[in-house]
């Protein structure tokens, strides 16, 4: 393999990098480089391709086309082990440490000798952590550590494994302000040691504070890479959201805004631990209420409390009113009985029974609503209900007996939606309704959401994808740090305005 020419001091380079999933590009012709000892911020909306790009770098997924160079040499990463051998490590948002093991054991995990003396491991770990000036006790179990200390252990492990490039995925999402300051010091410490750092973040102020250079991705393409000094908040937001609308699925501007009907759902001063902070909002019949916010803004938790899937604070947790009457559910079934349907964002874990057929899954929704006093389950009824909803939502499968796990993401999502709609709810909460769904199914799911609102149902769409929120919603609520901070009428909303409210 010939070694291409590369820039001096560039430790990692991607040339025309493209990764396709089932023919759909997640990243396309990305040219990216990382300099030695630099802190490089990678920014973009959810779904912009940041994760795919970093996964390519650490060998989790291979490139479909294009080239990757480490220290000027073309490499082909097939596994994360290859990446580690090339000095590339990634610290995930949810750390990959083993909670039941001690800090020292985690540090040396995968590098154990044939005979290990625990005392020796602890001493080595102590020396190493002190050399990094990390104040972590190596004998403590990882489960006892806070988020920042876990990050430290992850970083220490990466340095111990001679990582010259460390990639952080949303490193500050779960940190307190004090922990964040500590983390920033760590990153600067790494930089002074000549380690190159890539970090993904939604917090623009962090990027502007930490980074030497900033790269913005949008729809799988690299929009801009430039020195930090050439950026300000406005330019970053513009680069993040300024897509050519005519080229996207969600290009159509919402011209007709539905008028609000009765106030069906009212959330007042809701509190839930640190995730939902004094949150208040209303949902009206005959409208699609879009809820936008970045990860951690408390959107999902708020509506999970509404649907009885989570509990609000025990003391002074606020109120949820359904048609003016206070509600507090002990179990989700009570919410279903009251006509509230929550359609999960994580369909594979919470959405369906994977070994059951389409019809059986949809029928389960009906059983969940009405209960079956006699303990009898009607196969004929299941088939009838399954056929009806499969046709209505255009679920594409060879037969109704196909297991849901064998369907595509879009069809799985339709089954999950049908499972809730069969209960004939009055309030329907869609949480990320088109995540991981193919383009054709997105349009059909959107049509169904609009149909429900036209029928007079109160529909809530929680989405991290701005164009989706703008295309669907009659009113848009923007959540930040556990509460709704502003509301836009659909005909007055702009991407920049919404993003500004979500971040500031």
């Amino acid at each position, binding site marked *: 393999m010939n070694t291409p020419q590369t820039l001096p001091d560039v430790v990692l380079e991607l040339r025309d990098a493209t990764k396709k999933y089932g023919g759909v590009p997640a990243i396309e012709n990305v040219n990216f480089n990382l300099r030695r000892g630099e802190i490089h911020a990678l920014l973009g909306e959810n779904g912009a391709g940041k994760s795919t790009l970093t996964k390519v770098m650490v060998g989790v997924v291979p490139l479909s086309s294009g080239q990757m160079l480490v220290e000027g040499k073309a490499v082909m990463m097939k596994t994360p082990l290859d990446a580690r051998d090339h000095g590339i490590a990634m610290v995930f948002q949810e750390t990959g440490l083993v909670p039941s093991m001690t800090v020292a054991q985690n540090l040396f995990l995968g590098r154990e000798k044939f005979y290990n003396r625990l005392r020796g491991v602890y001493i080595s770990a102590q020396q190493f952590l002190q050399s990094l000036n990390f104040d972590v006790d190596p004998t403590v179990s990882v489960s006892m550590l806070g988020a920042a200390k876990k990050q430290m252990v992850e970083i220490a492990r990466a340095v111990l494994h001679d990582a010259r490039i460390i990639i952080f995925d949303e490193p500050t999402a779960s940190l307190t302000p004090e922990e964040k300051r500590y983390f920033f010091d760590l990153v600067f410490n790494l930089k002074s040691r000549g380690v190159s750092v890539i970090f993904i973040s939604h917090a623009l102020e962090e990027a502007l504070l930490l980074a030497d250079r900033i790269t913005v991705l949008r729809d799988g393409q690299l929009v801009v890479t430039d020195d930090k000094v050439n950026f300000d908040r406005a330019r970053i937001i513009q680069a993040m959201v300024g897509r050519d609308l005519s080229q996207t699925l969600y290009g159509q501007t919402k011209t007709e805004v539905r008028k609000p009907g009765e106030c069906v759902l009212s959330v007042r001063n809701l509190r839930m631990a640190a995730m939902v902070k004094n949150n208040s909002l209303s949902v009206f019949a005959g409208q699609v209420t879009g809820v936008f916010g970045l990860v951690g803004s408390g959107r999902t938790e708020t509506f999970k409390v509404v649907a009885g899937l989570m509990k609000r604070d025990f003391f002074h947790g606020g109120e949820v009113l359904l048609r*003016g009457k206070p509600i507090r559910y002990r179990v989700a079934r009570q919410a279903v009985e009251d006509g509230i349907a929550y359609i999960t964002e994580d369909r594979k874990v919470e959405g369906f029974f994977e070994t059951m057929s389409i019809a059986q899954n949809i029928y389960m929704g009906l059983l969940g609503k009405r209960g079956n006093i006699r303990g009898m389950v009607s196969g004929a009824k299941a088939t009838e209900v399954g056929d009806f909803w499969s046709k209505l939502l255009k679920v594409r499968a060879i037969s109704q007996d196909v297991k849901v796990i064998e369907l595509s993401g879009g069809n799985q999502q339709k089954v999950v939606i049908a499972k809730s709609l069969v209960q004939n709810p009055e309030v329907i909460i869609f949480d990320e309704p088109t995540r991981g769904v193919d383009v054709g199914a997105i349009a059909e799911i959107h049509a169904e959401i609009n149909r429900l609102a036209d029928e007079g149902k109160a529909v809530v769409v929680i989405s991290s994808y701005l164009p989706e929120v703008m295309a669907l919603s009659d009113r848009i609520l923007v959540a930040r740090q556990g509460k709704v901070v502003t509301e836009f009428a659909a005909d007055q909303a702009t991407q920049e305005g919404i993003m500004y409210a979500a971040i500031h």
Partner: protein
Amino acid sequence: MPSSFQRWWDRLLGRGTAAITVPIMDGAIKPNRALDEATVVLELPSIDDIASDGKDLWLSAGSVLFRLDGLQALEVCRFEVPITALAADSNGLIAVALGGRELRLIDAEGATVAQTRVLAGRALHSANALAFESVDSLLVSDGSEHYGTDQWCHDLMQHGKSGKVGRWNWKLSTTTLLADGLGYAFGVLADGALVRWSESWKHTLGSVSESQVALPVNVAELPGYPSRMALAHGGGFWLTCFVCRTQLVEFVLREDAYRKRMIEEVHPSQWVAPALSSGKSFLEPLQGAGVKTMGVLKPWAPPRSYGLVLRVADDGRVISSLHSQVDGQHHGITAVVEHAGDLYLVSKGSARLLRVKLNSAGDVA
């Protein structure tokens, strides 16, 4: 669960009736600056109420009745006590409530036509809103049997429930009680066959049909304390909210011992309570985020005073709203009326008469 135990349990956990929550201003009640951007017609100290007879616009301020002439208020007549409510009809009659204790019907020259001091055998004490129902009857709301109209805050802090709404037929010299035991009645409206009233401390409206059958409340719990109303020519009606609710005041209203001491020991102007205007004294209580930070008062801070007018549809839905947010100046809106295609509003908090243009649909242009 027995109700006393339920109450204790709710109070312990801050749930149910003890939940310290307030409705959010979103949807049709989303804050705007319409009241701050309204045209200021004139400034009139102590301005309180407004009425239209179809030709002229009448104002009350202190003990003086004015007629609006262009941008000037012309004095029509002066009474011995303050005017606490005002109504005008197309036949040239004007009704005034004097000192909250007397209803007087006068003609355009100020001559007395009829008067009364009682409502269904009980003395009036705090008459604060009037509305002509027909050529010979007048609707009246009496806020409290214990406090005068200027002492509405005392009634709020004492959980007053002595408000009443009634009808005075001056031709027959009869009075009829339509509703009693109200948590401060402040506003009446003759809406076709319905009589509507505001029950301020319950944050809602009540209504009764022609056959005097009380109708179920169809207006959702409001984020403010509702007050006077006026018909909207495009359908429905305008509703003023003279002050707004905050979690802090809701909390104080549940803390009996604290409130008792506050009433006994603190001057009313410095109570932790809503007000018609604020920001004039550093002695005002610091209410949550209402405190200025770096010299800036955030518009979304919890309001001590606020300007809010709602347009309500016949079915009780709020369909639009006009606001003067916390950092605005046109607070304490106590009266509203449509006149000559415009909407006139009295901001008692700023002692101003405001005007807002209406479009052909009768909504704010």
